[in-house]
């Protein structure tokens, strides 16, 4: 099909769920109610690190209005030394994160939960639970956790043969770095650190769970995957997956943070024990204290290049803090950081470090911004030493089709170079700067992902279309699916409705995450729709009594393929639907598959800052993000992904951080002091959508959601240097830190 002929793909249609969301009708998890519903609340650890000696829930159970109490004793027991892997999670840890078992490992760690007539009673009952602790010293920061005499979180985790808080490592190697550095004329090596930052989704975690006496369980919750909710709840409670129906409520943001469960298994236990539907809603403070931020990090990066600007070798070591349980996103840091470049010799190394903070959860391109921050800042220094334009320097070393990446694959067609060229030819690149203003550049990469996906496309009796997919829609994926379906069927977009099925109504579909959703669901929806078209042709062939092959589907109707096929008045979708029963019955098709062929995404950003050198404040005054998006099915929502990701990156770079006090407790568990960017902090975020279609996808889709958060940290650091001549190696570049360094 010719691009230009597209009627819906590439158009900014109104999203199917839009009307509900602008009128307040849309149901998020906290908006759901059930008759007889009671409220659950969680008792959380007052200590950052302690052994639980005993838990006595008797007084809580006896309080008037209390229906049930849950502790880890109500969960399936997963021995600490036997991995139970589910996707990238380990149920051993997940179970202990949901309700602490042997130990509490961070301030805010759930210990028990109560369901009661009201939230107030549940809270009061929590206070009546008696817990005896044996309090231990704690380690919050990476340095504290890896020093020789550090308090050990998990005795059985060994590194170099000794109990350690280093829970895992990962390594990528290409060529020979020692040799590579020998070939370099200039070598720059620097150390960096970043603070832990939270995804900052606005909707707090919430669920409503109803368990009947035969264990049939219904869960309404907001998550990035109803199937993940079902599986994890099943593991932890022992209720078989077939008995659990997980219904995806509208989700108020996740950014990776809702790819694991916190409340659902707890509410399930409370409901099972009380026989009542149980609703649980976290407060903002609980979200900040006990749901996963992403890692704090320390890293060291060394890059060597020749005088004519070719990188000869690169080396990176990244320590990422995992929080209470193993699982820091070292793969994203060590795997993505050098991906945009063609480097003959490289070695990256990642360490997964546990410490007494809440367990990290995925956050948009998990780990990748941390790796890119260090690498892209060093590249800026190398380019400066070589007196090269930072973009030209990147262009000279850019990975292309056929380049073997440091993290393994050999790249197919890809659009990294195009993002650099787009920036070089954008007016922003040449725009004049005033005093104390500066410009910075950086690139970024994310793997993107495919994975399991299911879809069902059904024709209604009146000849319209209902599409069901299995991935929760956070950023507008329903709109893109509607575009694709309307395009393929050749009908008006308003005749297509797209819904997200629950675990009982649609086949298994993996998480919304890793920029996989549109890639995967477009594949299965395309296949299902093509099957539907095939059925429609078949029905027309029956009506006309000609060969199916002699029929083509165009503009929403079946037509004879040519004069030879015979002369018939085309049959529209409506007409075929009317005749569905006599021609063979209901019309619909589904497809479920493990999708493959997701290809990486690249971006290059230009950022201008202005620095108030007397106060240490850096403000973003202009920003342009260029990204290879494959094919923008719904350009406005693609732009929205870029803009949202960039702004999260801006927050990470400038002001967001988890601040711990001397007692090992988070000191800023709310939006007043955990400073995500507000509207007045920002300029418009310009986007350049570079479209180099993914050859392995019917519409050319690549993921777009993760990449935009990768370059900002370093683009901003580089811009500040350009403005004032001071380099910063530690995030956030908050005013006190900036001023202190400038005044030195």
């Amino acid at each position: 099909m010719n691009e230009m002929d597209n009627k819906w793909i590439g158009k900014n249609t109104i999203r199917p769920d839009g009307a509900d969301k602008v009128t307040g009708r849309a149901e998020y998890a906290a908006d759901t109610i059930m008759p007889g519903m009671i409220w659950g609340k969680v008792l959380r650890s007052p200590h950052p690190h302690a052994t639980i000696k005993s838990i006595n829930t008797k007084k809580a159970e006896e309080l008037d209005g209390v229906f049930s109490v849950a502790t880890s004793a109500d969960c399936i027991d997963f021995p600490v030394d036997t991995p139970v892997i589910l996707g990238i999670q380990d149920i051993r840890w997940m179970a202990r994160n949901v309700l602490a078992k042997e130990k509490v490992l961070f301030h805010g760690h759930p210990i028990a939960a109560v369901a009661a007539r009201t939230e107030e009673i549940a809270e009061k009952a929590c206070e009546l639970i008696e817990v005896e602790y044996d309090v231990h010293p704690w380690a919050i920061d990476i340095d504290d956790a890896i020093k020789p005499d550090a308090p050990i979180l998990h005795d059985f985790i060994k590194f170099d043969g000794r109990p350690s808080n280093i829970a895992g490592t990962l390594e990528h190697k290409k060529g020979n770095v020692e040799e590579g550095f020998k070939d370099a004329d200039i070598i720059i090596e620097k150390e960096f650190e970043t603070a832990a930052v939270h995804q900052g989704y606005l909707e707090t975690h919430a669920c409503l769970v109803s368990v009947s006496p035969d264990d049939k369980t219904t869960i309404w919750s907001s998550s990035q995957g109803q199937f993940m909710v079902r599986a994890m709840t099943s593991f932890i409670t022992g209720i078989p997956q077939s008995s659990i129906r997980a219904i995806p409520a509208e989700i108020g943001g996740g950014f990776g943070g809702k790819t694991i469960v916190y409340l659902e298994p707890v509410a399930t236990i409370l409901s099972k024990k009380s026989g009542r539907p149980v609703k649980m809603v976290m407060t903002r403070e609980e979200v900040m204290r006990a749901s996963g931020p992403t890692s704090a990090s320390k890293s060291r990066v060394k890059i060597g290049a020749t005088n004519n600007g070719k990188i000869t070798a690169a080396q990176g070591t990244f320590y990422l803090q995992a929080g209470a349980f193993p699982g820091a996103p070292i793969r994203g840091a060590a795997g993505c950081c050098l991906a945009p470049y063609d480097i003959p010799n490289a070695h990256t190394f990642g360490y997964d470090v546990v410490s007494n903070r809440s367990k990290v959860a995925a956050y948009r391109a998990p780990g990748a911004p941390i790796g890119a921050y260090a690498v892209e800042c060093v590249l800026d220094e190398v380019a400066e030493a070589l007196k090269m334009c930072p973009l030209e320097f990147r262009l000279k070393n850019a990975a292309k089709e056929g380049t073997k990446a440091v993290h393994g694959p050999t790249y197919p067609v890809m659009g990294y170079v195009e993002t650099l060229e787009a920036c070089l030819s954008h007016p922003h690149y040449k725009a004049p700067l005033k005093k104390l203003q500066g410009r910075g550049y950086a690139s970024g990469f994310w793997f993107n992902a495919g994975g399991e996906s299911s879809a069902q496309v059904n024709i209604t009796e009146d000849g319209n279309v209902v599409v069901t997919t299995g991935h929760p829609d956070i950023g507008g994926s329903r709109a893109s699916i509607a575009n694709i379906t309307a395009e393929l069927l050749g009908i008006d977009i308003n005749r297509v409705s797209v819904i997200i099925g629950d675990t009982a109504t649609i086949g298994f579909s993996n998480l919304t995450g890793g920029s996989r959703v549109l890639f995967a669901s477009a594949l299965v929806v395309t296949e299902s729709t093509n099957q539907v078209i095939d059925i429609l042709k078949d029905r027309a062939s029956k009506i006309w009594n000609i060969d199916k092959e002699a029929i083509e589907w165009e503009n929403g109707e079946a037509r004879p393929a040519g004069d030879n096929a015979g002369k018939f008045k085309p049959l529209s979708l409506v007409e075929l639907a009317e005749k569905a029963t006599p021609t063979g019955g209901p019309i619909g098709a589904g497809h479920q598959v493990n999708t493959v062929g997701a290809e990486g995404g690249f971006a290059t950003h230009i950022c201008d800052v202005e620095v108030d050198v007397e106060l240490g404040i850096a403000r973003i005054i202009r920003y342009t993000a260029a990204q290879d998006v494959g094919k923008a099915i719904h350009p406005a929502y693609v732009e929205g992904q870029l803009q949202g990701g960039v702004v999260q990156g801006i927050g990470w770079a400038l002001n967001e951080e988890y601040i711990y006090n001397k007692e090992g407790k988070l000191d800023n568990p709310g939006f007043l002091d955990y400073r995500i960017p507000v509207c007045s902090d920002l300029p418009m975020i310009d986007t350049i959508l570079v479209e180099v279609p993914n050859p392995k996808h019917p519409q050319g889709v690549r993921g777009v959601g993760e990449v935009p958060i990768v370059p900002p940290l370093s683009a901003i650091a580089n811009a500040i240097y350009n403005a004032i001549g001071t380099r910063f190696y530690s995030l956030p570049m908050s005013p006190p830190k900036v001023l202190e360094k400038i005044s030195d």
Partner: protein
Amino acid sequence: MSEVKFVSPETLEQAVDEYSKSSKEGKTKILAGGTDLLVQIRSGASQPDTIIDIKNIKELKEISNYNGSYTIGAAVAGAVLDEEKDFGNNWPGVLEALRLIGSEQIQGRASLGGNLCNASPAGDSVPALIASGATVNVKGPEGERNMPIESFHAGPGKTNLKNGEIVVNFQFPKKQKHSGDAYIRMIPRTEMDIAVVGCAVNVTIENDKCVDARVALGAVAPTALLVEDASKALIGSNFEKDAVEKAALACEAACNPIDDKRGTVSYRKKVSKVLFKRALEKAIERAKRG
């Protein structure tokens, strides 16, 4: 929460009566805009058993101007005072300080009285009120009294109000000819933050000479400060560099801050000087205009 009482008296007398009576028996809280109080109730930091809503009391909601001297009710919300254009012409520094508090939503409720009585060292309107020379009228079981703003606070979260006393309104002096006030604060973002440092300056100029000056700082000590040494350095000067530098150093010297999640001691000290100079510049410009 056994028997929590909510009352909304319509006269000041009833309010004072209720306040002095109930605060003898338990924990009573006055409710103005509630933008501090409700957050404190929510976090458990405050658990009053009587809440007295003062927003139905006429005196506390009144804005009046008698011969150029303004009286502003303690419970008047920021967004409401903003609509009183003439007040802003007279006391742009006070208005901008009040308007910096929170978002537009917060402005629909937040009051000068609440900001003052909450007694946060970082309360934005307080330095501006001090610099303006405003006083506060207070009514209690023992009658009425008037206090300068700078002697209102006893420490972080503590006021010098006596049992049963309610802040009724703020009394502003008549604005001098060729005087101007200004307030500037430092926050990491552009909005929605608590001041790391705040500085208010109010100057009166005659023939290019500073004849009166009041300088106040916020968030750098247990309470907002009137920096008299800064005033002294300015009065009599032509705002020449030396005088301004001396006043700035007085600001820095007056600081007695703490290290906390919002800023360090050294940061606050440095910034107090910068903000003083910027606020001074703005105040001078305003003074020259009117």
